[in-house]
């Protein structure tokens, strides 16, 4: 589904990101290339950035792709576009759940419990409900053209809420999450509190996760297309 070299580069890249993200130490005054700076409020727990932020980014990317292929389906009525949209919705949900779980584990060690109904937590919960309903809607309709049409319209409307729930609401409301309205900074990612090496590992992590997403998405939609072809034959 993807180039052989890209596949093996992904393995090496992700392995490096895992080793660097977990084992590289966080110190007050970094002197060596492998040392990361202490970010106030995050300390040792800042390592979550390498895994939590890419999963949240991929859920946004997946929901965006679901909308794009939804629009494509409405324009051309090609069921392959619906399969691409469906694969993106499924992966978006998986990455959204991963972002929620990693964030929740981080919250336990930073704020004291797994869930606080912080604006960021509430917004991702609402997003999970919105896209969970879309999956439920898809499974409730048997006619594939009707399912594709309704799903396309739903994914377009659902994506309109994504920028609000991910980028706007958690930043205009006071909360515990870094980058909230009562936080002096915009959060470690937006404010670039990381040093150059930490930023490099962060961007490598984003790249590795994105390649992994693209690979799984391709496998996902091709298997859906094959399943539809086989169903039509029988």
């Amino acid at each position, binding site marked *: 589904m*993807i180039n052989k070299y890209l596949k093996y580069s992904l393995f090496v890249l992700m392995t490096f990101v895992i080793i660097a993200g977990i*084992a590289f130490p966080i110190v007050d005054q970094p002197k060596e290339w492998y040392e990361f700076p202490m970010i106030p409020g995050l300390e040792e727990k800042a390592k979550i950035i390498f895994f939590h932020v890419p999963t949240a980014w991929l859920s946004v990317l997946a929901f965006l792709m679901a909308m794009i292929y939804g629009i494509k389906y409405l324009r051309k009525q090609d069921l392959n576009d619906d399969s691409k949209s469906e694969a993106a919705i499924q992966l978006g949900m998986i990455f959204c759940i991963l972002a929620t779980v990693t964030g929740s584990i981080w919250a336990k060690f930073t704020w004291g419990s797994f869930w606080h109904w912080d604006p960021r937590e509430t917004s991702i919960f609402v997003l999970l409900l919105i896209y969970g309903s879309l999956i439920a809607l898809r499974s409730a309709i048997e006619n594939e053209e009707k399912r594709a049409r309704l799903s396309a319209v739903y994914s377009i409307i659902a994506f309109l809420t994504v920028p609000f729930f991910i980028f706007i609401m958690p930043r205009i409301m006071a909360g515990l999450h870094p980058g909230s309205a009562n936080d002096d900074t915009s959060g470690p990612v937006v404010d670039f509190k990381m040093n150059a090496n930490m930023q490099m590992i962060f961007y490598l992590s984003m790249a590795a996760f994105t390649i992994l997403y693209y690979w799984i998405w391709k496998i996902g939609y091709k298997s859906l297309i094959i399943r539809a072809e086989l169903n039509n034959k029988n």
Partner: protein
Amino acid sequence: MEGFYSFLEKNSIYIVLFIVLVIWTGIFLFVNSTDKRLKGIENELKGQK
């Protein structure tokens, strides 16, 4: 051997690292084998057409 155990006791992050690497290798191998199987099915279907 005792030195190794006491090193791991003080640096449990390396146990976490090992577990995460094993999980990542498992995910990679699973996705890769699914990819290969799917290619096989695709080729089979193309051959039938």
